[in-house]
């Protein structure tokens, strides 16, 4: 994960680069997405400071409706719901960062090599990746997470595995497109080794598409993490986690709605912020 600098100076430059060459509408989408995303990241990092109560301690009678002392009420164990929501983003963000990094780290090199070299290896890999891609990813992630056991890192591995084909297919497709260009041929004629051609000439052309897929698959990963949590496959109590809190509240949700409104809203907001960034970046590509 990149270091998070909060000085506006540190944010300004990458933001400018991200917005470079995008349409006004795309720029609006990216900005809106980034604003929500950064707000959630800051809230999660600052949880120890801003949360009014401990997320895991009983601080009031159970199942109290929202009040001034507990703006979002208390849960079945008398814990402050607002504090749990403020703390609850940490696991999702960690799992999503880990899983997206893992699947990109596996899928991108495989796609580059497979697409560039072609031949039997490419055929076999593509067939495997296509089969997994066509299968409901959530179901495979559920099976994998269940076998590995309910820990955030295991959930990240399960999510990473099912998204490898997404990166592989996208990168491979782009490589096939770029491969036919004359500048690759000339690089080859100059005697550059394949790994240098891939790194210096192919990868830069694939990067914009990777960025789009990166944020869109991060949005998917948020929903998948929430789903695994909701099925009790990502964390164990008393860890605060939005998906898990929904699962814990499911039985009582209809009588005590304040237990579910917050966590679900946060999941959707986080997924939406990443999807907006992805869409904004996609907008740029279509034009430039």
């Amino acid at each position, binding site marked *: 994960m990149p270091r998070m600098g909060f000085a506006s100076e540190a944010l300004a430059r990458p933001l400018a680069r991200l917005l470079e060459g995008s349409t006004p509408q795309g720029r609006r989408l990216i900005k809106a997405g980034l604003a929500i995303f950064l707000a959630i990241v800051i809230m999660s990092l600052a949880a120890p400071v801003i949360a009014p109560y401990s997320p895991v301690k009983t601080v009031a009678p159970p199942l109290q409706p929202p009040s001034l002392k507990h703006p979002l009420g208390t849960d079945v164990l008398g814990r402050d719901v607002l504090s749990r929501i403020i703390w609850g983003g940490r696991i999702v963000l960690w799992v999503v960062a880990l899983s997206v990094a893992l699947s990109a780290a596996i899928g991108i090199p495989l796609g580059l090599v497979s697409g560039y070299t072609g031949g039997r290896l490419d055929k076999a890999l593509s067939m495997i990746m296509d*089969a997994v891609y066509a299968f409901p990813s959530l179901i495979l992630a559920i*099976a994998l997470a*269940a076998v590995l056991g309910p820990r955030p890192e295991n959930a990240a591995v399960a999510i990473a595995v099912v998204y490898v084909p997404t990166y592989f297919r996208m990168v491979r497709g782009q490589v096939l497109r770029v491969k036919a260009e004359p500048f690759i041929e000339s690089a080859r004629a100059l005697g550059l080794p394949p790994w240098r051609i891939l790194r210096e000439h192919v990868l830069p052309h694939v990067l914009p598409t990777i960025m789009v897929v990166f944020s869109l698959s991060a949005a998917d990963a948020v929903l998948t993490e929430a789903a695994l949590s909701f099925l009790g496959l990502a964390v164990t109590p008393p860890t605060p986690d939005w998906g898990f809190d929904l699962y814990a509240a499911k039985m009582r949700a209809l009588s005590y709605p304040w237990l579910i409104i917050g966590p679900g809203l946060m999941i959707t907001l986080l997924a939406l912020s990443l999807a907006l960034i992805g869409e904004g970046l996609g907008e740029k590509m279509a034009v430039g």
Partner: protein
Amino acid sequence: MGLLRYVAVRAALIIPSVLILYTIAFIILRVLPGNPIVAVLGTKNIPPEQLRALEHQLGLDKPLYVQYFEYLWNALHGDFGKSLVIRGRSIALDLRERLPATIELAVAALSVSLLLGLSTGLVAGLRRGTRLDTAMRVYGSLTYTLFIPWLGLMLQLVFGVWLHLLPVSGRIDPQVNLRTVTGFYVLDAILTRNWAALKDVLAHLVLPAFTLGLVLSGPYTRLLRNNLAMVLDSKFVLAYRARGVRERRITLHAFRNAIIPVVTYAGLQFALLLGGAVLTETTFDWPGIGTYLVEKISYRDYPAIQAVILVFAVLVGVISLLVDIVYALLDPRIRY
């Protein structure tokens, strides 16, 4: 090349992908967890003779490659093995009981998502660049990122608890009698002319189908909008306009051209539909394959989980085959 040959080639392609998924499932469920019996019992303190007897009874003492091919061979004959947890319970029987519920939900949700997605996409495509267009785009992204269990619970809250309009869980009221013929309750109610049951079954279907359908409708909005925009910019539309063809007819023609890629997408979407069905079923206590999978996961019933993955792999393959056939019928240029 004829359509028949195309279908045959395309059908043959299902086999390797099902095999690949079976292999992956086998590795995940039989190789990774070590001994499934230990996993089920949750303890390693089992007398060794008893453990060995159990292993022998369930065929787990055979080499892995024998287990791999034996299970496959049996599955080909409709035998998905027996549950590890409820000893001796046939998994195939469980699946036959649960599958219709899931397919019923999936078909209903697909209809909802097409209805919502195509109508919003049509509006956005015809009113490009206006506020309405932007609103529809927001609709597309926002619905896609809704978390299914949350949306389901919120709808239960509004329509079940506050408005008392619709039932919030299950497929049918236990007090309603319905003779099952096919296992598809809507179909069964019609076949047996049981109109009271039909009303109840449809009422139970509304919220789950809407939940899943709404979340999956966004991509159709965008797809139809972009296709429609492309077609409306094409030369034949310009020619129509030049000849003074009425807008309504142009729209009809454009819509027919723009809808073809949507068909292919609906096939791809089916996998997403099944994944979403797991969450929808869990949220609405819908007795389908999804809740079955979640139940079996909590008991670590590995043969049952393996069977679910195999059935879903075949289902996904068959659906994409059907979609490709429809596509080939719609667009004669597509052939192998």
